């Protein structure tokens, strides 16, 4: 009996050990065909369109196969996933979709492959890209990511209701509040104005638009300038929307999709959101199809209409084993033809200037023309390698203020002190 037991276990062990080694590396080069992996978002129609684009690319480039790795919805979670891959020096994913605030951080850590040599080798024309965006993607003189699509915060509104009650789209927040209150009462709509107030990066984007709109700022030229009367006034405006019930109390927990659900359902008069929401709200099954408009953000006193620059860019992991093939795919995706296709099917903004006057694109996204200045003038968040930490201090304290834990002076003072400490370390 003992002998049989021993042989049984020995065999099991060998089989087990065998499977470990048999797994091997899913090697990418077989018969000269290279497989590259791309990590991509899946919001709205992103994934479907990307699959279609991959099919076209593979038919034109028989030596490359593209594998998709879907990402979580939240930008913060994507960032954390990337960090896990980078620290593990994983070669599993070649192309990464990066939020506009990550290239300085990832670049400094040495995690992105410098692309200048490929740009030269393949003669890639970078002049049509928005220069501001390209600058953010350049670290130490080397381009580390290629702009794929851009984003800017917009104010959506119920065009049909504003017209019904004879209102022009508001230019000031005060005006917006009055219009919202009036229409809320007369139409029995539950919410006047929904935006993103949860304690996350999206709040930084939303809040900065209020703050810039009141003439204030957060960090300028590397210095913390948040403690100013204009910023405090902006914060008070934000809080006032909640206190006067124009914005629901729940806005302190809303991210982009929460706001969009309410607006698209017809339960809000105004919404601050990114351009992606337009296409979804205009689909067949949307209760507000054909009833919405999009405009530049209103302002407070002393400020000018501002939009936060968002957008996603494609970079290559420095641990990738197929960086050249990856670059060829990136060049394909960020070229004129594919950016046009993407823009017409997902509503996401191209990063090439000339596409904004293309008549076919304008038919699908009419506000590209009227809001061109908004996109060109969108302001970037502080492009600092420690941005994640600084933004965290900003949005946790602003959220605390909106919830009612601290007042606006305490809020800016805390942010000022803590950010100064972070920057000086």
């Amino acid at each position, binding site marked *: 009996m003992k002998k049989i037991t021993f042989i049984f276990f020995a065999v099991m062990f060998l089989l087990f050990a065998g499977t470990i080694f048999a797994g091997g590396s899913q090697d990418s080069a077989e018969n000269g065909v290279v497989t590259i992996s791309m990590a991509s978002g899946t919001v709205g129609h992103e994934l479907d369109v990307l699959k279609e684009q991959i099919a076209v690319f593979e038919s034109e480039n028989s030596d490359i196969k593209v594998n998709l790795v879907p990402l979580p919805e939240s930008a*913060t979670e994507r*960032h*954390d996933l990337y*960090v*896990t891959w980078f*620290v593990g020096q994983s070669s599993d994913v070649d192309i990464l979709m990066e939020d506009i605030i990550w290239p300085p*951080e990832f670049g*400094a*850590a*040495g995690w992105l492959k410098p692309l200048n040599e490929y740009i030269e080798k393949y003669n890639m024309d970078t002049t049509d890209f928005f220069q501001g965006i390209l600058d953010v993607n350049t670290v130490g003189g080397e381009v580390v990511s290629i702009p794929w699509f851009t984003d800017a915060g917009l104010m959506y509104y119920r065009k049909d209701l504003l017209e019904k009650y004879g209102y022009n789209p508001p230019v000031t927040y005060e005006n917006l509040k009055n219009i919202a209150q009036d229409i809320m009462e007369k139409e029995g709509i*539950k919410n006047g104005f929904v935006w993103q107030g*949860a*304690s*996350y990066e999206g709040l930084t984007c939303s809040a900065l638009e209020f703050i810039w709109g009141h003439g204030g700022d957060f960090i300028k030229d590397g210095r913390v300038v948040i403690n100013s009367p204009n910023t405090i006034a902006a914060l008070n405006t934000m809080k006032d929307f909640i206190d006067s019930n124009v914005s*629901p*109390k*729940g806005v*302190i*927990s809303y991210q982009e999709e929460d706001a969009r*659900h*309410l607006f698209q359902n017809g*339960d809000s008069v105004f919404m601050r959101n990114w351009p992606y929401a337009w296409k979804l709200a205009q689909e067949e099954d949307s209760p507000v199809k054909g009833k919405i408009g999009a405009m530049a953000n209103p302002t407070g006193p002393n400020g000018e209409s501002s939009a936060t620059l968002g957008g996603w860019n494609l970079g290559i992991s420095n641990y990738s084993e197929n960086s050249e093939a990856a670059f060829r795919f990136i060049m394909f995706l960020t070229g004129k033809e594919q950016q046009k296709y993407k823009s017409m099917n997902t509503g996401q903004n191209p990063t090439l200037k000339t596409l904004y006057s293309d008549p076919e694109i304008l038919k699908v996204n009419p506000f590209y023309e009227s809001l061109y200045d908004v996109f060109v003038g969108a302001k970037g968040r502080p492009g600092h*390698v*420690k941005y*994640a*930490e600084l933004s*965290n201090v900003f949005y*946790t304290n602003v*959220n605390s203020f909106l*919830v*009612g*834990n601290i007042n606006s002076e305490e809020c800016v003072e805390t942010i000022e002190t803590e950010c100064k400490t972070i920057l000086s370390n």
Partner: protein
Amino acid sequence: MKKKEKTKGQNRLSEGKLAIILISPALIIILAIAIFPLLQTVSYSMQYFDLRFPLKQEFIGFQNYGRMLHNRVFWDATWNTVFFTVVSVSLEFAAGLLIALLLHRKFIGRGIVRASVLVPWAIPTVISARMWQWMYHDQFGIINYVFIKFGIIKEGIVWLQNPETSMISIIITDVWKTTPFMALMLLAGLQLINKNMYESANIDGANSIQKFFHITIPILKPTIMVALIFRTLDAFRIFDLVKVMSYGRPPTLAYINYENLIQFLKFGYGSAISIFIFIFIFIFAFIYMKSLGKKFER
């Protein structure tokens, strides 16, 4: 006869040596998997190690700890964690004990009830976090819907973000999830109690309360201690609910630990927080073990 015994004694290993040889594979694995990373974390915690500045890595002694102990967010998180641990473990214990006492009796359908009580424990935490998040939603959530329908409140409460209600919401979800575990552990302990004790108490004229406090609880004490140790150590490290359900509100120690390591890439500072959590838990476990030992000695 004597000669044979002597030879036998020389050929057989002493029990002690045999024990060491048999345990050593497990010990080596534990050393590799647990002790080595622990020592590495201690080492990181004494360095300036920031992935955003990979070239600046250097030894800085206890500076990370100093910074940590002066940090407001750290103390907020510590307080939140302690509060959460005390309240949730107490509630889970009380509820678990009640359920265990109920399940200890024979009634029709007891098997089904016993199995269904385990369902919350069986659902992966991430899924129940998302489920509860939706239930807590201020406009679409069922909890607000029911409360408003019954006229308890006029408009939806923002359960997860409101400072007054966010801690309670997390505690409720955690209690829902872990009470079954407590109940099962206590039930196992209850079933070890000798029924004869209750019979003799009945003869002596004891009522239910006296039987409960003088028989049930004392005999159950070891089981209670083990269950409490498990739950306290787990509760102190609460992370998944805070991250998935309420996006870091209110912040707990494990959450800010994660934030500093993965979001800010501050591996040195983050390691200091990890070691703090480790020391805290270690002391807790030590105290519990000591008092458990005392109980057995009695």
